[in-house]
């Protein structure tokens, strides 16, 4: 295939259309969030202003979105750290054959495919019957883990399936303890993938809706707050909020990508001492 075939151009065109389909709507509300103060939810633009962004900073206009944002951010960090820890330990466990590993694996898959509303309903009922108050940091946190952990686990499977075991064997042959092997050999090698797991943990939690719906209690997370707005806010302020939170998500993704990139560069610089002599 030296010259580009006709199939290539057809497929490239299809791919471009797919990207437009994927990003077009989001870009549209990005533009519409700069509607003038008298503008509506659709085109045409009625002037250009940052009126609707300013509106977001006036507490009474749109409810407690900044409180919701702080809660979502804190919850995202909690879920991220827990997902990392649990996914890595479970990933290590699944490399060995142990009784019940099959059951645990299928439970994790179930956790991924179970309709979210079941988790919401079930956790809500348990807390209710135990006389506990549902709260985003307890019931909401646990419910979100049932969504983020399977993803983390699947990534760990993908990582360990490609992991060269001779590195560990070399460490063991040289007298490293199991813990030293994990700490100084395995973790550094899988570090870039761990950043991916962390990114999934944070963003999936930050945007999670269905599993948090009945488990967040009286203090809403941001997606719940936004959904509440869709029923009673009919101005572009909701676009402004959507634009801001999407930009925030994109910012988080960029930070994680930069982390991976920086790590790769550091490795390239310091990873090998070939040719350096002794």
């Amino acid at each position, binding site marked *: 295939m030296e010259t580009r*075939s006709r*199939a*290539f151009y057809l*497929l*490239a065109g299809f*791919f471009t259309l*797919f*990207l437009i*389909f*994927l990003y*077009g*709507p*989001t870009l*549209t*509300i990005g533009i*519409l969030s700069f509607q003038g103060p008298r503008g509506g*939810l*659709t*085109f045409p633009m009625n002037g250009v202003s940052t009126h609707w962004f300013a509106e977001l900073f006036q507490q009474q206009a749109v409810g407690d979105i900044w409180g919701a944002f702080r809660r979502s951010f804190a919850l995202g960090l909690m879920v991220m750290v827990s997902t990392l*820890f649990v*996914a890595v*330990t*479970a990933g290590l*466990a699944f490399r*060995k054959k*142990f*009784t019940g590993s099959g059951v*645990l694996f299928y*439970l*994790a*898959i179930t956790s*991924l*495919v*179970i*309709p979210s*509303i*079941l988790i919401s*309903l*079930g*956790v809500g*009922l*348990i807390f209710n019957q135990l006389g506990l108050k549902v709260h985003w940091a307890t019931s909401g946190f646990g*419910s979100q883990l*049932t969504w983020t*952990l399977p993803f983390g686990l699947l990534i760990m*499977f993908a990582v360990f399936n490609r992991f060269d075991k001779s590195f560990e064997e070399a460490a063991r042959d040289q007298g490293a303890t199991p813990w030293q092997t994990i700490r100084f050999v395995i973790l550094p090698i899988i570090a870039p993938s761990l950043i991916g797991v962390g*990114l999934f943990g944070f963003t*999936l939690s930050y*945007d999670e*809706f269905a599993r948090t719906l009945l488990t967040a209690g009286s203090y809403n997370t941001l*997606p719940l707050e936004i*959904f509440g707005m*869709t029923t009673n806010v009919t101005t572009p302020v909701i*676009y402004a909020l*959507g634009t801001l939170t*999407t930009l925030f*998500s*994109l910012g988080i*993704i960029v930070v994680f*990508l930069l982390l991976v990139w920086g790590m790769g560069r550091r490795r390239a610089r310091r990873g090998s001492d070939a040719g350096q002599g002794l």
Partner: protein
Amino acid sequence: MFKSRDLIAYAQAAPLGLVLLCFLVAPIIMIVIVSFWGATEFSIYPAFQFDNYAFLFGSPVTYKVFLATFKYAFITWAFTLGIGFTVAYFLAFYVRTQAMQTVLFLLCTIPFLTSNIIRMISWIPFLGRNGIANQTLMSWGVIDAPLEWLLYSDFSVILAFVHLYTLFMVVPIFNTMMRIDTSLIEAAYDNGATALQTLWHVIVPLTKPGIMIGTIFVVTLVMGDFITVRFMSGSQKANVGRLISNDISLLQYPSAAATAVVLLCTVLLVIAVLLRFVNIRKEL
């Protein structure tokens, strides 16, 4: 020796096991129990009665709603598969450099990490009565009056599903395609197969595991959804998830639980059938 290795494995698996026990297994058990309970207008009380199930299976609404749920799942599956396969095929076999492949793949993945609610909201300016689609079609003279079925209809529901979930097809299919031994494809070409023949007789069969995983994702996500249907249909269409969430909002938890149990069984049955075609752990 053997024992201590086992012990370490259990200790490492314990955190995952514990979370799943508390927030997956226990809730499911709880739902099954509550599905036999009774409810008054304001509260629920422990009982062991089959009223909820009897009502569920006795109501024609149930069958209609389950049928609608399967319809959404099937149509969404067909579209996401078609689009997802084409996109993955392009990325895997027609993009030459690995750097470009990574960039384009990331471009496909990023929307998955942003808010679904916002992505649904973002269709409103497109599909509304005075939205971009209607304005464009009218200015081209294709239609005289705005189309009413663009927003708050089956069309917009399925459009949103395809928009949200095509990625779940692209990623596993792309992943499987990248593991296809290129010598197989070269062999097909050397033996005189056309591009289409190679695609159909070599690539598609080898991509089946990825297609199955993508199918599992899409079908379960659509079948368990309640929020997309509610939002994109303006509460005018129903699926099983909405049936459950309506009961919840009326505090009819036992009835919601019974519907949830039936939904869970249906979803697990579908998965069990699909899993016969693929070994997930080997495919990662």
